[in-house]
């Protein structure tokens, strides 16, 4: 046996485990869904308008959505249609102006528009193109605009060496200006001026462009949005000419008045990076100040009461107030609610550590102030959707577990007429408050909860209408009601049932949280993990019973509907596994008899030869590694075969006490092998990870899977029943191996502050402990003369270290 193997055998690869744990922690993080990474119940789309959707809260993106809410092309097309009149349709304008492919555009330019030839078939019925030639000014302008596209509408590509044709742009800009000055038609004149400014701007002639704006455009009398686009250009000119505060101010005006350029203005405002106080100094009225403070607030992902209060102060009727308020609620959900919620160990996306006291205090103070603001909002009634204030107050009270106060706020809304969306949000908050107010989930309370749950269910069903799976990345981020339902069932109801020790109902709650899409339910990995790891046989028996005959009580009937996704086979497989974990072998065999043979024989692939052969758990080895999976010509045991074999051993031990010692030894060996250190872990666990080694106990079967306590007990029993010294030595050594597994391996996550020094100290203690295994003394004293003892000393470096010390 080489030194290398010896090292592997008894010395724990602390370093490997240490790094592997960290690597796995980081690698299994996966990509975060920026729309669903914290527990949320307050929908961000409750307001009457979605025009500020790009500014909804998410810490993970600069903008919630990158697309302008309104299309500039549509606006322009409408203006043209109105201007030309006579049945010209805006859709036709848009098609001709914005949607033609390059060659079609060119063909038109040299053909029909030049007075040569007729419209191609595809455009024969285009009302815009039909009307254009009869308006000489418009036609001339349109030809000009199309001509400059080749130098102005240039797509930026890094590796394209072509530069903007600054010369061409300058002369085209000047041409546009001279055309403007000879044009009497106001509609066309405006557009020539805009082109002049635009072309000069693109050619980097910022001063000239700004002059065009200042001289001709700033006071142009028109309602056309072209004026706004010129304003946006002018803001850019100011920026490039280093008049940054003015630039920011102008961008704030674009933001306010031209939704088709709102995101552009917002981005530019932020790039310029000036203090809002400086920009405020340029504002002429309250409305402008409101916008500046709102932009400030939208780009702040920290808790921020100031922007909200200021915007309300300047313009209480603005929808931006609502957006800012909802942002604050969502921020509180991320920073405060998610860490404090008593999640089950299977918390969603749980990147969160325990909430630090300072953060908690900060959030609570923030909520005090926010609450005062909401009070003001609700009582002053200036803000049109002032009901939002009470909803926010109720929700914040719920977050802080003040059910009474929350309910009081809800009651205050009783006589208010709320929008449909507000009513939905109200229902959600009511459900939360009711659940929170329940001392426990009993039949009465459950029945009271049912109507709300059914309502929520219907909402989810109505919302989800696509061909997708709930397991797809980004699913819950798109469907707020589905996310609300999932969060409620899996983060509030399931943990509550667990607290009451009603595991079967907790299991139902987990499953209930997974969305049903077109009658298809795909259990999430959280639900699957829960079902596989947290259910005792008693709980599973209940579930089997429910599946077999759906319960009569309406609540349970409702909650058990999704059991259809599990086949009876699956449930019996689970049940059998639970019995195995509980050492109830006859019951396990009976349950596993009900499972399809094919399913039972689906073994995991082993990491030696990537084959899925299963293992013989009765193989006894001194060393854990390398694992011997099968004897020559042997076959792997599936769960049923294992259960049956153990039943046979139990019978044998009872029938023939003389063979009890070896019987117990074999059983102990098998149970040891079902641990993470053995060759047949799959018999009691659905997963195996190298980080399971010596980890802290989480699941009810970790006593076997991690600690090997029952195996130790059986080894000792075997020893007690024997008189053979060699055999007893062997039992002792095996017991020592079990004892070793009961010493917890130190890991980084033991120390919430990731204190490396503390970890190192803990590792030193661990190293000492494994060399002071209590069975070592026994081995030395009582079995020091046996042949097996010599083997053990040869094999186990910890034993050798122990002996060195005691010499």
């Amino acid at each position, binding site marked *: 046996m080489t030194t290398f193997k010896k090292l592997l055998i008894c010395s724990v690869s602390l370093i490997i485990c240490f790094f592997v744990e960290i690597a796995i922690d980081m690698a299994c993080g996966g990509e975060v869904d920026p729309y669903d990474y914290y527990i949320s119940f307050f929908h961000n789309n409750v307001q009457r308008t979605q025009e500020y959707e790009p500014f909804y809260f998410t810490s993970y993106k600069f903008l919630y959505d990158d697309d302008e809410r309104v299309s500039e092309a549509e606006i322009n097309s409408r203006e043209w249609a109105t201007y030309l009149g006579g049945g010209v349709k805006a859709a036709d304008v848009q098609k001709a102006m914005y949607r033609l492919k390059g060659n079609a555009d060119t063909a038109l330019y040299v053909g029909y528009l030049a007075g040569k030839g007729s419209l191609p078939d595809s455009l024969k019925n285009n009302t815009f193109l039909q009307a254009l030639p009869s308006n000489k000014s418009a036609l001339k302008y349109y030809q000009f605009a199309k001509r400059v596209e080749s130098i102005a509408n240039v797509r930026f590509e*890094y*590796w*394209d*060496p*072509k*530069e903007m044709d600054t010369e061409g742009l300058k002369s085209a800009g000047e041409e546009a200006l001279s055309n403007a000055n000879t044009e009497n038609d106001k509609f066309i004149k405006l557009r020539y001026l805009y082109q002049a400014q635009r072309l000069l701007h693109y050619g980097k002639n910022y001063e000239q462009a700004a002059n065009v704006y200042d001289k001709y455009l700033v006071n142009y009398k028109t309602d056309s949005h072209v004026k706004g686009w010129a304003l946006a250009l002018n803001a850019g000119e100011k920026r490039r000419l280093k008049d940054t505060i003015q630039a920011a101010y102008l961008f704030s005006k674009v933001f306010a008045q031209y939704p088709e350029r709102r995101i552009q203005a917002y981005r530019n405002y932020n790039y310029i990076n000036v203090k809002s106080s400086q920009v405020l100094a340029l504002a002429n009225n309250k409305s402008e100040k409101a916008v500046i403070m709102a932009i400030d607030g939208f780009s702040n992902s920290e808790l921020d009461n100031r922007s909200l209060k200021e915007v309300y102060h300047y313009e209480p009727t603005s929808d931006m107030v609502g957006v800012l308020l909802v942002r604050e609620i969502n921020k509180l959900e991320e920073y405060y609610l998610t860490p404090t919620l008593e999640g089950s160990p299977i918390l969603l996306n749980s990147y969160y550590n325990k909430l630090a006291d300072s953060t908690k205090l900060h959030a609570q103070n923030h909520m005090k102030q926010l609450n005062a603001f909401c009070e003001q909002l609700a009582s002053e009634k200036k803000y049109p959707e002032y009901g939002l204030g009470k909803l926010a107050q109720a929700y914040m009270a719920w977050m802080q577990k003040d059910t009474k106060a929350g309910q009081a706020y809800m009651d205050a809304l009783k006589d208010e007429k709320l929008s449909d969306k507000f009513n939905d949000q109200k229902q959600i908050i009511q459900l939360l408050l009711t659940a929170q107010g329940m001392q426990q989930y009993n039949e009465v309370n459950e029945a009271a909860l049912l109507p709300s749950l059914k309502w929520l269910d219907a909402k989810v069903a109505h919302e989800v209408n696509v061909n997708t799976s709930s397991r797809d990345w980004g699913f819950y981020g798109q469907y707020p009601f589905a996310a609300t339902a999932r969060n409620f069932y899996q983060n509030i109801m399931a943990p509550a049932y667990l607290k009451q020790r009603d595991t079967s109902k907790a299991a139902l709650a987990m499953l209930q949280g997974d969305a049903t899409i077109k009658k298809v339910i795909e259990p999430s990995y959280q639900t699957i993990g829960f079902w596989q790891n947290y259910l005792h046989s008693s709980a599973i028996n209940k579930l089997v019973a429910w599946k077999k005959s759906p319960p009569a009580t309406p609540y349970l009937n409702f909650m058990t509907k999704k059991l259809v996704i599990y086949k009876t086979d699956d449930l019996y497989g689970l049940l059998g596994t639970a019995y195995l974990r509980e050492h109830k072998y006859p019951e396990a065999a009976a349950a596993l008899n009900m499972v399809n043979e094919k399913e039972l024989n689906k073994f995991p692939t082993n990491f030696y030869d990537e084959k899925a052969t299963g293992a013989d758990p009765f193989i006894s080895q001194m060393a854990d590694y390398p694992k011997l999976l099968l004897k020559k010509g042997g076959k792997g045991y599936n769960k049923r075969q294992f259960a049956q074999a153990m039943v046979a051993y139990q019978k044998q031990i009872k029938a023939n006490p003389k063979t009890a010692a070896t019987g117990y030894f074999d059983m102990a060996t098998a149970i040891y092998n079902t641990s993470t250190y053995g060759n047949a872990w799959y018999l009691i666990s659905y997963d195996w990870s190298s980080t399971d080694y010596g980890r802290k106990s989480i699941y009810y079967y970790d006593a076997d899977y991690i600690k090997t306590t029952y195996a130790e007990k059986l080894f000792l029993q075997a020893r007690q029943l024997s008189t053979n010294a060699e055999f007893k030595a062997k039992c002792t050594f095996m017991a020592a191996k079990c004892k070793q597994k009961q010493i917890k391996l130190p890991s980084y996550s033991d120390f919430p502050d990731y204190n490396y020094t503390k970890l190192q100290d803990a590792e030193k203690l661990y190293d000492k402990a494994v060399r002071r295994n209590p069975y070592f003394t026994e081995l030395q004293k009582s079995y020091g003369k046996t042949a097996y003892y010599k083997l053990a000393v040869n094999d186990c470096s910890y034993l050798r270290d122990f002996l060195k010390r005691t010499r």
Partner: protein
Amino acid sequence: MRSLQKTLVLYLTVLILSSCLSSSCRRHDRLINTSFYFWKTVYKTSKTESDYLNHLHSRKLYMRIMDVDMDESGSVPIPVSPISFQARLPDTVEMIPVVFIVNNILKITTHQQLDALAANIVRFVNGKVQHAGKASFNELQIDCDWTASTRENYFYLLEQLHKVKGLKGKPISATLRLHQLKNQKGSGIPPVNRAMLMCYNMGNLRKYGEQNSILEISELKKYLGDNLTSYPMPIDIGLPLFSWAVAFRNKEYIGIAKRISFDDLNNKNQFIFIKNNIYRAKTNLPDYGLKTNDEVRWENVSASNLQATATYLSPFIKADTVNVIYFHLDDATIKTYTYDNLQKTAHLFR
């Protein structure tokens, strides 16, 4: 008989003398081409610059087309600060495009990305050369301070460049820094047709002291010698014409003060002259980013220094033609050198 002896002696003397003469001027005069690097992002015509080019009979201008670095996401190489031409190059001047590659990108790019990069570089360079008013170019130069860890990728890129159709088999040259010349084992020999030895930035810029980190013969000697003579390809010589102010605070390097000129250092209200090339700030000078008592080391390259360098280098060069390329062509920089001085430097390479 006597006249025959006389003739013989005369003939032998002439023979001996001429052989002596020819052995002392053992080699033919080398052909020296003087050129400049153009390293600004905007090319405009400048009388000073064209005058220098004319006087020094410079027929080539080595122009930086772009840097290549990773984009914001850190995943894709992109052109950075590409040159733009506000005027066309004079017909008398040949353009040699130079591309600077940031060494770090070679640590993370894959071969596939390098294939694409080679094609992109050639396409981009071709485009820019057209902007400059040239139909094409006759040599491409790559500038990269590669290291042992990026050597494999860098050489791979150079090989791929050779293969790009758009380059049509034109020669590629690469810049060579002194440490790469000296440590050929670690740095390897780049797969190019010519190398351009950067005889500048050789000292320790960041070390406090009176050294001249730009050009100092004692430093140069540490790297050169046989290395140069035995390098397996023709080598051009790059010489510096620039100067800068190196700032120190409490004898710790704090940067190069870009806004300080030599005249500023001689302003008694701002600086105190200590000795040699060291000056001390008299007061806080926020415009230059300096605080009171910060020290500045003025490094420049005097004409005599240039000439001494040329004298030192010349014997080590074995090629018949040498391109001497000055870094760099910029009004303010070159005005401090007379045509004579630069001509003399070139002459010393013959």
